[in-house]
């Protein structure tokens, strides 16, 4: 057991020393309150289309290809999924799709929209449709996550703002 303990400690130590999965830089330990989602409210009951509305402070909305700092860029919206990791571009969404080749401009806006990922330079976005997440007759919840992208389309930092709402579909 002593050997096993030593091995575990050595393994952990080695992993930490080699920086395997850990870092001390670029981490957020307190909440980032630059962005505030105004609409919808948490757990609000909505019908389609769903409008997302937010405000942003200390961040200049410049759009793709314009600006160079971490305080300028645009927004990405992820529906019912985790956003791309910090420092990654939206190409990460298509990382497992061998048919999507950057040379052909993939992933483009249409490709991303099909996967419920949207970009915007506005502080408002309207979702016309949403994929069903629950069987008919059951309560259907959705979650929207907004992150910041820099001019190169890379996610800035670890900050993410989200809201959860319940979708009421019209009975046909």
């Amino acid at each position, binding site marked *: 057991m002593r050997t096993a303990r030593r091995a575990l400690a050595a393994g952990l130590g080695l992993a930490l020393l080699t920086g*395997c999965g850990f870092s001390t830089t670029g981490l957020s330990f307190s*909440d980032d309150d630059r962005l505030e989602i105004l609409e919808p409210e948490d757990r609000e009951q909505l019908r389609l289309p769903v409008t997302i509305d937010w405000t942003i402070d200390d961040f200049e909305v410049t759009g793709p290809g314009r600006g160079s700092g971490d305080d300028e860029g645009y927004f990405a919206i992820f529906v019912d999924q985790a956003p791309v990791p910090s420092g990654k571009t939206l190409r990460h969404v298509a990382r497992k799709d061998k048919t999507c080749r950057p040379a052909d401009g993939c992933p483009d806006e249409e490709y991303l929209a099909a996967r419920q990922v949207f970009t915007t330079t506005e502080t408002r976005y309207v979702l016309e449709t949403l994929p069903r997440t629950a069987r008919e007759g059951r309560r259907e919840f959705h979650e929207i996550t907004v992150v910041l992208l820099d001019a190169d389309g890379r996610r800035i930092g670890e900050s993410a703002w989200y809201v959860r709402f319940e979708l009421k579909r019209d009975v046909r």
Partner: protein
Amino acid sequence: MTPPPVGTAAPEDLVEEVTATREALRDQARQTLGVTGEDVEAPKLRPVLRENGLTLYPLIVLGVLVVIDTFQGYAFRVLTPEISRSLGIGVGTVAFLLALQTFASALAPLPLAAAVQSTPRRASLCIATAAIWSVATLFTGFAVSTSGILIVLLADGFTSGSVAALHQPLLLDSYPPAARVRALSYYTAAGIAGTILAPLLVAVLVGPLNLTWRGVFLVMGGLCLIALPITIRLRDPGFGKWDTQQLRESVHELHGDTDRLTETEVQLGFFEICRRLLLIPTVKRLLVAFAVFGVLLIPFQTFLTFYLEEDLGLSAAQRAIFFAYLSAVSVIALMLYGKRGEQMFRKSPRRVVEVSAMQLAAGVVLIVLAIASPYVWSTVLLFGVASAVLAALAPAFGIALLSIVPAQFRPHAAALYGIFGGGVGGIAGALLLGTVQEEFGVAGALVSLLVPGVLGSMLLHSAGRTVQADMDRMIDEVLEDEEIKRITRAGGHLPLLTCKGIDFSYGQLQVLFDVDFTVDDGEMVALLGVNGAGKSTLLKVISGVGLPSAGSVRYRGQDITYLDAERRARLGITQVPGGRAVFGPMSVVDNLRSFGYTLGGDKKALDAAIDTAFTTFPRLAERRNSNASTLSGGEQQMLGLSKALIMQPRLLVIDELSLGLAPVIVAQLLELVKKINQTGTAVVLVEQSVNIALNLVQHAYFMEKGEMRFDGRSADLLARDDLLRAVFLEGADKGDPK
């Protein structure tokens, strides 16, 4: 009781002395274990501790550890969405990592139990594991990828196993039986308090203090590390300081002996201990009941959360308050239960188990009533009462399970408890509730708990019937073991093999009943009986191929009842099975080589032993390269007996040597058996042929319908027509002259 001088007493007298000592001390031993049989109020805790020079320190330390153990796991589960969004890891991946952590946490108690089975170092392991999970909690705040999260979750999962395997056994050995139910109740209450504290802490850190999940883990890891120094004086009191060790000392006190012998020469390995525990009827029943309890403990919480949200419409904050209310009610119930539980245990452990069974049934019924209730206030109230009723199950389970196993085996029992409760119960519960929820919704899933709850209650109730007997069995084992050590140390000569009170069952069918069987050094005994009498089963018990449900097997004074068959072979017990004692598809020489595996890598010794076998049986030398399956019956028995020449056992057990062989072959083989016996090897000859057996031996046993009907001189057995008639009649049926 005046025992004979140990050094001069006959082996069989010493065996009787062991039994007498056991009987004389059993009542005293029960009291030592805290079962006085009196239905009186338990003494107050502080005087009990003061009287024994104890403090609350071990309870406080283990209580603190069980509280901080909840931090990482709770925070990670609550903050999973934030972690997922922040790191860009899908919820499915995080759920998979959490499943790995749960798996690690469920398995970890086993190696931890193995680590302490021979050395009492539970305290240092508790501290070391707490240090690791504290660092893991802290480092969770610095994880930036899936691999980082995996490392911290696995580190936390593996080290959290110490809580399941070590805390309760350590607590039991830290306090005398008069304080144990309370110690376990307060410890469980501390664990529940952790489930109040952890959510409150997370709420404060992410709310008013505005921290991200990283900040939360940083603070929680820091708090864990700050708490660690208070554990530094925690010491392991040793195995069974207040029970099994005192039982052992009582044996020496009875004989006015000051000699203390505590070391064990034949220690069970890890799997042997687990297997041995699973043979105890109460343990089996309790483990299944634990699994049902696990259904209530683990997935129930998740489904209850959904029920509160979807059916009662409670917000996150209201749900948090609801769970805090349940936890607070449980803590109060445990504080009240401690003394009452102690009193019940003193009166009878059976009462503790049976009351627990009623509590389990009442708990699930209250849950169903809570769901059926039309008002929110009554639902909340009924869930509170259910929580209070179910809270006391944990210490009741703990004291019932750990009191019936020797102190060294308690970490193993506690580990099995964790696996059945958390692993089996958790998975089965998730499957059950998930399936029912698909069809009948969350409320239907919770109502479905009634079925496993009532079944578990019935099982638990049945454990009440066996718990006292199993406690007595544990007492007997400890007393017998210590008495035999005392006798051996005093120069007494015990029989080479002693089987006492052996019961054996094939499933539900019991085939051996309280069988005693003794073989002295160098002796040759015959074990007789008709087909189905239980002879071969008894041999299985001796050689370790079968394990008894009751009784003990001692070899050279050591308890080998639950030792693996291969370890017994290394100790010098060799069996030549009935019929074809060979590996048919292998050649003669390969068979001989396979018999020599106990010689290890000593090729020269093995070659010499094979040469001896060929010299003894020239016919085998002629057929050395033939497949064993092509040999005649006599040749196969020769090959089987060669095993004895190669392994040179101290005890050779031969099953049905003469079966299907011509008399002339049997005579040759018996000559060889005699020669083997003359070299000092004790031989047990199992035969249906009375003439063959009784002409060869002086000491015979006769079995009938699983019971030992005769133990004495061969000549006396020949005079017992009432016993031998059955053998003769059966032989006559087959046309065997006998």
